[in-house]
């Protein structure tokens, strides 16, 4: 599956007077963050909640985008990692009384470590075996979440998950917490943006495009693959850490294998390998069901069908479609894909 070059050559025509490290993607992120900061005015609690949920899911999809879109690995455990992050944060903040920031960090570190442990043996074999190992892991996590009632509350879950405060400022309300989510999501997106632009990103691309050639150039394919998987999983952990205080009550159901499939579909629908793709994919996965409320659970079928058609027509997802459209509009003639 091809994606655009991670480093865009500056077009000779239009060159804005900006410092070299700023590019279109970063500008879009900044602009979007500003818009989203003010967006909920007049939206009411539920609308604001949906926006926040969209952003939180985007974080999980961003991580999976790194794993799938850049390193080419099918991880079927993204929702499980999100669950680990969510339950870790929930337990640490509500039962242990630890502040959210430390819990957030621990959630990320924990999922990163688990990702390393899980990925290491699986990658010594064929890369696509990771799919089945993560499938097994997903099921295992779900079993633990459901059975170990003393820890996770079993099917009854954990409730009264507190929301963080910011230097004494309480963020319990929908709007303040939404703004908090915007900031955290923005920061996480910028970290990923930086990573993709760095030599790491170049190595990830090489890994996906041609692992044999990459290895012959000294790229430690095993290490980079593991890194992509572990970081991707850590992002799921971060997403979970945001999800728990957002919904204030968690049970195992949002972290099932089906949800992992769903996250994969979101990555693909948005456009795997595009930095902004996850936001589009999560939009389709989170906001679309809200619009399709009347259809009930049919929205899943509709979403899956959309993804399939998208894959046939344009495997680069919505981002690919937008890119094609933009190219047609501006009359640019890019090299053949």
């Amino acid at each position: 599956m091809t994606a655009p070059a991670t480093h865009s050559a500056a077009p000779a025509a239009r060159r804005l007077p900006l410092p070299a490290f700023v590019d279109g993607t970063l500008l879009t992120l900044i602009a979007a963050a500003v818009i989203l900061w003010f967006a909920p005015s007049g939206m009411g609690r539920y609308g604001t909640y949906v926006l926040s949920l969209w952003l939180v899911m985007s974080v999980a999809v961003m991580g999976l985008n790194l794993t799938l879109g850049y390193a080419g690995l099918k991880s079927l455990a993204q929702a499980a990692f999100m669950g680990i992050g969510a339950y870790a944060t929930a337990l640490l903040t509500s039962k242990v009384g630890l502040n959210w920031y430390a819990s957030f960090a621990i959630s990320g570190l924990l999922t990163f470590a688990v990702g390393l442990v899980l990925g290491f043996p699986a990658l010594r074999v064929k890369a696509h075996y990771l799919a089945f190992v993560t499938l097994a892991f997903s099921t295992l996590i779900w079993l633990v979440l459901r059975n170990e009632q003393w820890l996770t509350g079993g099917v009854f879950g954990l409730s009264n998950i507190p929301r963080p405060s910011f230097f004494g400022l309480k963020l319990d309300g929908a709007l303040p917490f939404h703004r908090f989510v915007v900031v955290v999501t923005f920061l996480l997106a910028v970290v990923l943006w930086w990573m993709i632009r760095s030599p790491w990103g170049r190595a990830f691309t090489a890994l996906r495009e041609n692992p044999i050639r990459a290895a012959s150039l000294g790229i430690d394919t095993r290490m980079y693959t593991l890194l992509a998987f572990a970081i991707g999983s850590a992002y799921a952990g971060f997403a979970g850490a945001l999800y728990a205080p957002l919904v204030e009550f968690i049970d195992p159901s949002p972290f099932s294998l089906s949800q992992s499939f769903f996250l994969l579909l979101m990555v693909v629908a948005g456009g795997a390998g595009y930095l902004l793709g996850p936001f589009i994919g999560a939009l389709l996965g989170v906001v679309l069901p809200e619009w399709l409320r009347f259809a009930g659970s049919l929205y899943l079928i509709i979403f899956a069908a959309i993804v399939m058609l998208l894959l046939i027509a344009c495997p680069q997802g919505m981002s690919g479609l937008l890119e094609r459209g933009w190219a047609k509009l501006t009359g640019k003639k890019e090299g053949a894909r």
Partner: protein
Amino acid sequence: MNQVLEVSNLHKAFGGIKAVNGVSFKVNEGEILGIIGPNGCGKSTLFNCILGQLEPTEGAVKLDGRDVTNMRPSELNRLGVSRTFQLLQVFPELSVRENLILAGQEHEGSMLSRFFGPRDAGLSAKAEQMIGFFKLGHLAEAKAGGLSYGQQKLLDAAMAFMAGPRLVLLDEPAGGVNLTMLGDLKERLRAINAEQGATFVVIEHNMDFVMSLCSRVIVLAEGKVLAEGTPAEVRANPAVIEAYLGH
């Protein structure tokens, strides 16, 4: 004279088929060694065994006296061994410059510096140098996939040299390249051999190319070394002539 590469009694069998059947040779520093032989004689398999792409069934490979027999390709590359591929393997979506930076980045700094440091890993200047050396100047920003076959071959070669390797293995570098490009390629290879002092091992079918570029030639047939010597010696060897039925 320094022995950069030593291959001892290498065997590689696929099930019952012995692709490489006891090959031994040495390569001295700065040499350009050619490996020729009729189709199916085991040249590519030999290469892949040396480079860690395949595990030999028996035998050893030593780099500067150090046993590297079962090392993975990426580790070997970081020890200073690089290669070109018979079937073109540049990264089509990246620009020519990006391809070159990629080829060198793992040899600069550390994982941390590759994350926090500059985007080009400090290799822009070196990349420019390579682009100039291999005469790809006007194509620096072009997507590698859009280059002509011959240009991609030059890029492939340039990538092999980005990290200043000690030993370069070239797998059919002349394959599919037109005559003018061929002359350029040969001349560039000789120049970089003189300049960097790297040692070359070249697999080729194109007799003229091999004979005019290499200082020493090994002939393989049916997985074994048939003859060894200077191009002239090998050319005159009756066993070689028979194995090849002319060139």
